């Protein structure tokens, strides 16, 4: 044995893999009631360039130092007289601020039951006694690396969440501002309500209202394939394009054709949008519309009428160059109601596994009482489809309801923004039920 003899020979690294500074700078708290064992552990760690060490002479001291030192890793002796390692471990895991910190428990036990208690008490791993330096360093490194990865992942997730929230707000700002809509609605003798909710942070639905002249306005509803970032970015593209072709806002077929030509060039394969554009000519009591693969809209023509499904054929935007879109027309007399929706509503699968479908929505609308506030109509049909305030949506969902009824100033526009509870209008009376 030459243990005590000095030597200048370079020793081999216990763990040969180069380590990142963040590992070597990690804060490590060593809790052991035996001073010699504490010093031995610290000596082995320092020899491997871990320099940010703190020593605790027992469980109580460890608990006191945890809050102030905020270690990245805790090395705990299982058997300490004032508070056992297992007890410390359980207390640490019960503290939300420390709950994820790696805890390595030193133990000489080979008792399977005690080992089970150790892990169920929250230990991340164990170190056998007598101390094996290679094992100590390897386990410390692997748990610090895991801990760092976890923290990086959390930081990344928080950043992405913040960015998605900012994008969601920007996307929300693409929707018609309530003040401007109210002005349109008042001047056109209409009542308007809308509902727009994404199935994830960002959606692929977009709707808007375009003032044309004193006697007409346009309403579009687009639904990009999929949802999430791609679909949301495409809604920004489409919004810009629609406003670029202001001169075509009174020509649904031509506007749809031009948008298709632009999107065919812009969108990569597999990305496309259904699109419905309706011009409401309230001066002449007429609807003119074109569709690019969009779901039909519902029309109740005049008081007491049944809801009609108004379909128009057309290839979705962005798929085929040269696609033709055709103008359709329909009467829109006073007391009529127009109900536009994306397929998130008609295709929603309820708790029983059923979809209401287009005809189910028409039936539900036909059975609504006359004169309901458009907001109430939306609530009723969403409820019929199975969409309630807290239900998770399977697809982005947009609904717009417009009617030509005699209205007061305050009644003209109501909007349900994402996250806003489906509050009923203050004008809704007890008799206004589906």
């Amino acid at each position, binding site marked *: 044995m030459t*243990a*005590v003899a000095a030597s200048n020979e370079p020793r081999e690294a*216990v763990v040969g893999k180069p380590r990142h500074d963040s590992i070597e700078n990690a804060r490590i708290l060593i809790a052991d009631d035996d001073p010699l064992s504490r010093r031995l552990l610290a*000596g082995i760690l320092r*020899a491997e360039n871990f320099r940010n060490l703190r020593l605790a002479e027992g469980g109580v001291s460890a608990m006191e130092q945890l809050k102030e030192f905020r270690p990245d890793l805790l090395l705990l002796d299982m058997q300490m007289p004032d508070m056992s390692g297992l007890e410390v471990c359980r207390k640490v895991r019960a503290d939300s601020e420390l709950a994820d910190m790696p805890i390595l428990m030193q133990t*000489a036990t080979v008792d399977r039951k005690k080992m089970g208690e150790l892990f169920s008490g929250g230990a991340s791993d164990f170190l056998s006694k*007598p101390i094996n330096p290679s094992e100590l*360093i390897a386990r410390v490194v692997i748990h610090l690396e895991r801990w760092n990865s976890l923290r990086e992942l959390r930081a990344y997730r928080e950043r992405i969440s913040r960015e998605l929230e900012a994008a969601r707000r920007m996307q929300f700002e693409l929707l018609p501002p309530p003040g401007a809509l109210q002005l349109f609605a008042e001047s056109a003798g209409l009542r308007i309500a809308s509902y727009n909710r994404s199935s994830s942070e960002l959606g692929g639905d977009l709707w808007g209202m375009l003032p044309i002249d004193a006697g007409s306005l346009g309403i579009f509803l687009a639904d990009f394939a999929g949802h999430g970032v791609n679909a949301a970015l495409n809604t920004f593209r489409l919004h810009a394009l629609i406003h670029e072709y202001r001169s075509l806002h009174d020509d649904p077929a031509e506007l749809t054709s031009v948008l298709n030509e632009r999107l065919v060039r812009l969108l990569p394969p597999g990305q496309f949008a259904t699109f419905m554009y309706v011009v409401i000519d309230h001066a002449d009591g007429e609807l003119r519309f074109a569709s690019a693969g969009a779901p039909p809209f519902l029309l109740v023509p005049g008081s007491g009428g049944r809801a009609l499904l108004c379909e128009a054929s057309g290839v979705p935007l962005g798929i085929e160059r040269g696609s033709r879109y055709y103008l359709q027309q329909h009467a829109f007399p006073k007391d009529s109601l127009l109900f536009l929706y994306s397929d998130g509503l008609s295709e929603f699968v309820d708790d029983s596994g059923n979809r209401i479908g287009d005809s189910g929505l028409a039936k539900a609308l036909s059975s609504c009482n006359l004169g309901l506030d458009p907001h109430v109509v939306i609530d009723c049909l969403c409820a019929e489809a199975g969409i309630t305030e807290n239900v998770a949506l399977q697809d982005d969902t947009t609904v717009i309801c417009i009617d030509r009824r005699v209205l007061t100033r305050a009644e003209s526009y109501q909007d349900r923004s994402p996250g806003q509870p489906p509050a009923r209008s203050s004008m809704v009376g007890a008799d206004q039920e589906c």
Partner: protein
Amino acid sequence: MLETVETEPLFASDQLDLLRDALGEEGLSVMLLELPEAAGRSLGAIQAALDAGNLDETRKAAHVLKGFSSSLGAARLASMARSIELDLDSVAAIAARMPALAATVEATIAELARRAPGAQG
């Protein structure tokens, strides 16, 4: 059992090799220099607990001795401490083992001194 323990080597060379790899020769020497004082302290703690007739405290003190002596490669001392902690079930049985434990501490310290740099022989 006692005979088995007493024929065990005073130091386990494989454990010392592991420590040497980790700490270097000088680092290992520094740690081993602390062994005599720590062993003497543990011996005193075990004796005090025995004098108080406290079996539980006696075992706890033996557990500490077992922990650092095994980690520092003092194999015979660690085995003797382990036997006191886990095998003996009375104060009297442990008290009867104390002379052998004290002799093992002395032998371990002597072995360290013999192997210290500059030691004769």
